[in-house]
């Protein structure tokens, strides 16, 4: 072998070794994310920081529509082709795909202390640590306070019922010719809080789901009647089918709605879109006969067990979950913290908008008053089965395809059928 050949061979072997070594050390992680506003920017800033500290780990943030999180992600995960980390709202429903990060975490106690109650939402039947809440949400209404002032109608105060609010918003809409007095997100989750306020139990004595009872019927009947008398516009709930989600955030931001039942996640969007164009005001959850409650909820960032790099995934999750990083994330995005330390100590929210500050305060103050039933429902792994049955059948009743009684029967049947299907083969 000539010297030239030897040099060529040596260089090739060295290059190959270096390339292979580099490839083995590097972990490419993928995070699937959806945006309510533009919180992916704050997350990307944190990921950049992490990559600087850990040059052997790279993270790609895939921002997808929320619909993809609900519909495509479960299929990807079932096929074993999911991301390493994902932001999800079906917290318990996807729990079988979550990674238990406990063995990889430096300080698992930190996680239990600060995320304790929410870890149960991610793993209803166990005690694994799979992720943390990127935001804690509470459902509740916003009102256009400026319209109330212009109409000279007094806003119902604390303890007011849904009927009081319906009367007041109709008065405002009639005086100012506003097309939609009241709008609710088309979502079973949004209806559940007020239904629980009207006495809905959601579960039987054995803890099995029991969607339809007098409390739920009472709230559903109110919603039905409001759609018939014009308090609510049929074009939101009546214009699509099944469990399709529709929000009235655009209409509210355009001052076409007097009262909008949604939740705390709208704060950054309203602060950005509405600004000081009018006074958008979050008000405490109106009362029913049993309670004055909204629904808790939120989105969580969870690690997936099919990841090829569980150690690196846990390292990244641990980094993101640190108090200073989460404080930055919650603060920038005006999110109610899902970290108990930050919830107690407070977060420095990046806003001077008095409306946003008031809304954050209103929703944060609502947390202690949330009904235990609402927490149980949020923690129930199959809650979306109940939400979807509720919203789709109520929607069909509102447009006249079913009577309310038929809709209630169908809700029960839908829940039973889907849960039976889920039980098969598991």
């Amino acid at each position, binding site marked *: 072998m000539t010297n030239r050949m030897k040099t060529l061979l040596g260089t090739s072997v060295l290059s190959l070794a270096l390339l292979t070594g580099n490839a083995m050390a590097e972990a490419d992680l993928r995070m699937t994310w959806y945006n309510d506003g533009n919180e992916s920017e704050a997350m990307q800033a944190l990921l950049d920081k992490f990559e600087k500290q850990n040059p052997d780990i790279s993270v790609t943030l895939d921002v997808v529509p929320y619909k993809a999180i609900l519909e495509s992600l479960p299929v990807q995960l*079932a*096929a074993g082709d999911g991301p390493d980390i994902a932001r999800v709202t079906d917290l318990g429903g996807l729990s079988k795909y979550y990674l238990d990060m406990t063995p990889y975490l430096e300080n698992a106690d930190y996680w239990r202390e600060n995320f304790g109650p929410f870890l149960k939402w991610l793993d209803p039947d166990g005690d694994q640590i799979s992720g943390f809440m990127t935001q804690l949400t509470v459902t509740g209404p916003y009102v256009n306070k400026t319209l109330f002032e212009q109409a000279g109608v007094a806003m119902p105060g604390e303890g007011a019922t849904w009927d009081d609010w319906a009367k007041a918003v109709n008065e405002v809409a009639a005086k100012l010719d506003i097309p939609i007095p009241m709008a609710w997100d088309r979502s079973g989750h949004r209806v559940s809080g007020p239904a629980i306020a009207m006495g809905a139990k959601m579960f039987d004595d054995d803890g099995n789901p029991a969607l339809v009872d007098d409390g739920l019927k009472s709230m559903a009947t109110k919603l039905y009647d409001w759609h018939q008398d014009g308090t609510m516009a*049929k074009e939101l709930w009546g214009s*699509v*089918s099944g469990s399709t989600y529709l929000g009235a955030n655009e209409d509210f931001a355009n001052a076409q709605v007097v009262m909008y039942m949604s939740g705390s996640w709208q704060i950054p969007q309203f602060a950005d879109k509405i600004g000081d164009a009018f006074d958008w005001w979050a008000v405490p959850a109106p009362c029913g006969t049993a309670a004055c409650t909204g629904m808790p909820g939120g989105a969580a960032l969870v690690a997936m067990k099919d990841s090829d790099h569980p150690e690196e995934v846990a390292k990244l999750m641990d980094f993101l979950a640190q108090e200073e990083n989460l404080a930055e994330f919650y603060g920038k995005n005006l999110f109610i913290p899902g970290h108990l330390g930050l919830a107690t100590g407070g977060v420095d929210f990046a806003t001077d908008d008095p409306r946003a500050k008031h809304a954050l305060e209103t929703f944060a103050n609502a947390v202690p008053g949330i009904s235990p039933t609402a927490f149980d429902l949020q923690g129930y792994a199959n809650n979306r089965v109940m939400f979807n049955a509720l919203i789709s059948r109520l929607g069909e009743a509102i447009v006249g*395809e079913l009577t309310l009684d*038929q809709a209630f029967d169908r809700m029960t049947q839908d829940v039973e059928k889907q849960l039976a299907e889920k039980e098969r*083969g598991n």
Partner: protein
Amino acid sequence: MSPKPSKTASEQLQAIAAWPLQMFFRLLDIPLRGIQKMGGIGSMPYVFLLPNLAFFGMFVIIPLFINFGFSLTGGTNLFLQDRVYVGGEQYSFLFKCENYMVSATCQEDRFWKGIFNTAIFVLFQVTFLVIFSLITAIILNRKIRARGFFRAVFFFPVLLSPVVVALIWKWILLRDGILNAFLVSLGLDKILFFVSPEWAMFWAVFVSIWAHMGFYTLILLAGLQAIPPDLYEAAEMDGTSKERVFWRITLPLLWPNMLVVIVLALIKGVQIFDEVYVLTGGGPGTATQFIVQYIYNTGFTNQVQNFGLASASSVVLGVVLFVLTMLQLAATRRRNNG
């Protein structure tokens, strides 16, 4: 003897560009000759069909069998081998009805609502699609001014993605859309098109016709242009009325193209999903929820993704499409045989 003319630069370039292709076909020729030697000339059609058949088998036939396999299983597991065999249970659930004509009496009411909605949609969409395409083709076949421009205009929507088509029309039809703005400018009230079941179905049909008419017009236009002009000249010399010319010459000679249009429109109509899903979301209620959307919802949008029931529904849809196609083919054969 004149000297052989030298090749121009352009011819030389063409020869260079064609060289790789020539080489490829020369190389391909070697195994093909070998196969022909072994199997004889009779085997060659099958050899040429094989790549296409393999592709078709991989992406159509095999999935068809897998889908049928899924329809005999239950549970939520994704892989067939992990699922529970339930026999015909999903089918019997779909067909459990007190009265098949009243979807509310059926166990799976939405499946039947989807079937009825699809039947109504297909009836109106196919009928009007064929009529409008025929009228447009006849007009575009005449010597009118800017004929090329109008042909392009009618074909343009075909080039658009169904989602884009639906979004454009959604913006036009919303409460604050262009159409309502126009109605208000005329002093009329706004119409909430997506709240009324009748309006929603009307627009679903209308938008679908608008989007696809250009394609069918093109097929009919090709048919019209293939009719020998001397037939029309002879009819004119005989003083035949225009109506009679249409019924006795144009329509009979155009019939093979019409049949293609009807079959294609029928199959595409039964498969309708994307445009209407974006336009109306299946609403109001379930007024425009068609069978494919039912399958999609059952298999993918519910928290419990019921692949078994969705597969059983798609098998039923497949059977319906197969029967429709067979009926059309039988009609064609009967006509061709006189």
